[in-house]
Each structure stands twice: as C-alpha cells, then as structure tokens.
C-alpha cells in the first residue's frame, strides 16, 4: 500500500506540472500577451517597455521558469480589475464554490444511490423503468436551461426560493440541483448496471446458498463490488460538478469561483483566470488522488497488481 500511495502521489504531481504548463501557455495563446494585457491604444514604445519590464522579451522556457517560481510561492500576479493579489481573490471565493459542489454531490448521491440500488434489485419493475427514464432525461437536459426553468417555476412563480445571490442555505438548493442533475443520472445508471452485473456472479449465489439474508448479501458482498465503477464515476464527475457549478453560479449570480471567472473574461483579467484554472485543476487532481486511494481500499487487487505503471 505505501508503494501504491507514493506512486499515485508522483502521478498527481506530474499532472499538476502539466497543468502549470497549460496555465502558462494560456497567456501566450493569443500570440503576444502584451496586446492582451495593455489597452488597445498604447503607444508602441510603451508596449516595448512593458514587454521588457514583464520579461516578455525573453525566451519562453525562461519565462516559464519565472512563472513557476512565482506560482509555487502562491504568486499569480495582481488582478487588473480588483487591484489585489489574484490568488487571494480566488481563494476568497473558493469556500462558496466548494459548498455548492458539496451540495450538488450530496443531492446527486442521495437520489442516485437508492435509485440505482432499488432499480437493480427490482429489475424491469415499474420503479426500474421510471429510474431508466429519469436517467435518460437527466443526461440530456442542458444544465443552464434546467436552471432557468427551475428559477421560473420556484423563484418567480411560486416564490419559494430566492432568485439569485447568496442569502443562506435556501440559495443553495436551485444551483445544487442544476449542477448535480447530470451526475445524479450518471451515477444512478452506473450503480444499477454495476449491481446487475455483480448480482449475476457465482459468489452471490454462494452467499445466498450459505443462507445469508438478502440484506447481508447486498451489503456485504454485492455493494462493495458494484461501488467500484460508481466511485470511479464520482471521480470523473468532479470535473462535471465543477463545470456545472460554473453555469449554476453564473445563472443564479452565486458568489463563487465560476461567477468570478466568467466576469473576469469581460475584464480580460488574466491573472485571475490563470489562477482559477490552476485552482480548479488542483482540486480535480486532489479528488482523483483520494478516489484512487479509496478504490485501492475497496479492491485489494488494484493495490496489489497495478503497481507496474
């Protein structure tokens, strides 16, 4: 196990390094960063002076080294719009986004777990068919549209929930449903098919033959094995949840990272956007690392036989 943990840690660091290259290259995507950073009517000599001051006239690899040495010290530069440290602004908004992502994940798990399990146990029943139809809908409904429709119904018509902003837990409900609906459908679907596959295995038959109750068979034998693809799915969903939270934040004017980032595009506030991409990617890497470890705990075969790459 320690070897496996070490190997996953190294892999996580490698991915983070790659992300740093992407974030660095973002700035150079437009060709000359100076044209992005300065107002359009800047005289050429001032552009030159700026390029020299920012080190933009040096070779790319050198610029990258400077960039990384700043970033590892937590220095993403100053926000042009807010006129303060970019990382500080991003970290200020982070708790709100984490709260939203946690709410969205809880929402999707609370509905997806029982739905997936019961649908698999009662295959082809009315409930199963209903779950399959809901999964179909959940995977096809565009998040931003769902958000608008929910807002129209619950905030405008019925006036049950706030339209936008953040004024307490009630402000979390609609954004969480918006950001979590796709994940809910995916997790329910995977849990159902995973469980169906496991329930057909010989060891389940053995467990039944030994006289274990249905509950014991389900909790002790079937669920742990069926959980593996579902846990992987949750890892993949982190990206979706974070992406979905961007949409939900923008629509509901929820003061999180996504709202900040989309607004920053309008200001061409590159340091904030670079910092946003880096922080989001770092979160995905951390969650993936955690899931890899949970995965290994669920299935000893992984930590014992997958050490070769």
């Amino acid at each position, binding site marked *: 196990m320690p070897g496996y943990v070490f190997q996953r840690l190294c*892999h996580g660091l*490698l*991915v*983070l390094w*790659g*992300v740093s290259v*992407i*974030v660095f290259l*973002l*700035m150079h*995507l*437009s060709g000359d960063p100076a044209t*992005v950073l300065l107002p359009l009517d800047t005289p050429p000599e001032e552009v030159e002076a700026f390029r020299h001051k920012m080190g933009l006239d040096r070779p790319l690899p050198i610029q990258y080294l400077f960039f990384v040495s700043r970033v590892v010290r937590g220095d993403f530069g100053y926000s042009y719009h807010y006129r303060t440290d970019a990382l500080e602004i991003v970290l200020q908004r982070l708790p709100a986004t984490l709260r939203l992502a946690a709410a969205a994940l809880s929402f999707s798990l609370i509905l997806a777990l029982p739905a997936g399990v019961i649908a698999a146990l009662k295959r082809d029943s009315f409930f199963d068919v209903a779950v399959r139809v809901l999964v*179909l*809908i959940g*995977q*096809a*409904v*565009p*998040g*931003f*549209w769902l958000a*608008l*429709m929910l*807002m*129209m119904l619950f905030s*405008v018509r019925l006036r049950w929930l706030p339209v936008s902003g953040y004024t307490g837990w009630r402000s979390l409900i609609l954004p969480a449903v918006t950001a979590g609906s796709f994940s809910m459908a995916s997790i329910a679907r995977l849990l159902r*098919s995973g469980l169906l596959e496991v329930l057909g295995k010989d060891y389940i038959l053995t467990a039944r033959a030994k006289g274990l109750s249905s509950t014991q068979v389900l909790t002790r034998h079937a669920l742990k094995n069926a959980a593996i693809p579902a846990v992987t799915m949750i890892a993949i969903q*982190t*990206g*979706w949840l*974070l*992406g979905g939270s*961007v*949409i939900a934040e*923008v*629509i509901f004017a929820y003061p999180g990272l*996504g709202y900040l*980032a*989309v607004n*920053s*595009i309008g200001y*061409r506030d*590159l340091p904030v*956007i*670079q910092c*946003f*991409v880096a922080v*989001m*990617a770092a979160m*995905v*890497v951390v969650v*993936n690392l955690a899931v890899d470890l949970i995965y290994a705990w669920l299935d000893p075969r992984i930590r014992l036989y997958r050490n070769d790459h």
Partner: protein
Amino acid sequence: MITSQERAGGKALFPGRAMNPGGMIGLFIVGCVVLLSLLAPWISPHDPGLQDINQRLRPPAWPDHPLGTDGLGRDILSRILHGARISLGISLSAAVLSGVVGVSLGLFAGYFGGILDGLLSRLADIQQAVPFLVLAIGVTAVAGPGLLNLVLVLSVTTWVNYFRVVRAEVLAAREEQYVWAARAVGCSSARIIFRHILPNVVASIIVVATLLIANMMIFEASLSFLGLGVPPGTPTWGRLVSDGREYVTSAWWISFFPGMAIFITVMGINLIGDWLRESLDPRSS
C-alpha cells in the same frame, strides 16, 4: 446471447439483433431534426433575423408565431430551425476533428507502446485534470469567442475520450492472431494499424463518437449561453436560450422552446448511442 459465428467474426457493425425501441425512437428523433434543419430555409415561417418591434414578446400563437417571438420580435420557430444547422454543424465537426486526433493518437500509442504511449497517456491525464468549461473559459478569455475557436476548444477538450477507448482496444488487438499473422507475412506497421486493427475498433469509435456528439451539443450550448461561444446574433440553440434570460419573469417561451430542442435532440442521440453500445458490446446485454 452471442452465436459462435458472431464471436468468430469479431464485432460486426450491425450484428443480427433486433433493434430496441429506444434506438428506434432515437433514430426517428435525430432523423427528424436533421431533416428539419436541412429544410430550414424553405419551411421557416419567417426570416430568422427579421426584427419586428410591433410583434415583440408575443406568446405562442398559431399560425403567425407558433412558438412566439423574442424581445426583438423575431420568430422563435424560425430561429430554432435555422439554429439547428449551426448547432448540429458545430457538434458534428468538433466530434470529427477530435475523433481524427484521438483515434490516430490512440492507434499509435496502443500499437507502439513505450515512451510514445507513456507520454500520450500522461498528456491525457493532464488534459482531464482541467474541467472542460474551465479550460474553455481560459481559452476564450485569451483567444476571444468565435466559431473556429469554439470548434477548436471542443476538439481539444474531448480527443481524450477517443484516445482512451482506442488505445485500450488496440492494446488487446495487438496480441490477436490476425495481427501476428499479418506481421508474419511481412506487413508494415502502418498497414497493420490501418488495414487490420482499425476496422476492428471502428465499432467502439462509432459508439464514442455518437455519445460525444450529444455531449458536444450541450457543451456548445453551454458556452454560447455563457457568451463564450459563437458571436452575438448567431442563432445557435444555446444563444437562443440565453436570449430569454432577461425575460425569465415575463416571457417563458423564449428560453423554453430552444432548450426543449436541445433536450430532445441530445436524448435522441443518446438513445442511438446506447443502442449501438448494447448491440456492439455483447457483455452489456
């Protein structure tokens, strides 16, 4: 049930299996959407760009504006029909472009293995660590919104889907007897990859492509909705939904119908994808 004949013949593209009702519904939906989008200039009741301030914010009413009008008095049905072309076009071209990249890299990585495989697989890991929308925000912030940038962003963020599937299939196919036989008679690597292995992974590629087109439609719509996709005024479905944002309290139909169009089309494509996956992968049935 798989017959021995089917097993021996590998995965045929359309194994002799009855089509499930979901697949039929999916084909019907997608067929209709494609047909309507092709016929858009002839069947639209109005010019999609025609503004008529006297007719603004009209609720759906037959026969003038069956789906109502938007804040500038433009006919929503006509805009949806014309938008279908752009939305489908973007999704399709992005799925093809990312497919070409992902499939070729997957073929080479799987077949040759070694350093190339290691590098590409790590690249795929890195790519997947940056959520799609997050990368899209970063890219548009610098490169600016636009049709070409949109297709590029969509392709750059999705090639990994093809890469992973194709690579895994090639890894398995590499050790099959037909590949050994081809190698023994002196076929070049390129010939083995493209003439012998590729036809055997086409089935999986089609499944990935189908499900990806559905995702692309949602991605494109989300980006256009956020103002990061197509330029303003271009009637893609995502734009149309976002046109209705400011009228959410008064004119529900502006956002509702374009969203329904996205929802129904994506569901249709997903149904086809699921059906293909089930009929191509004997294990899943």
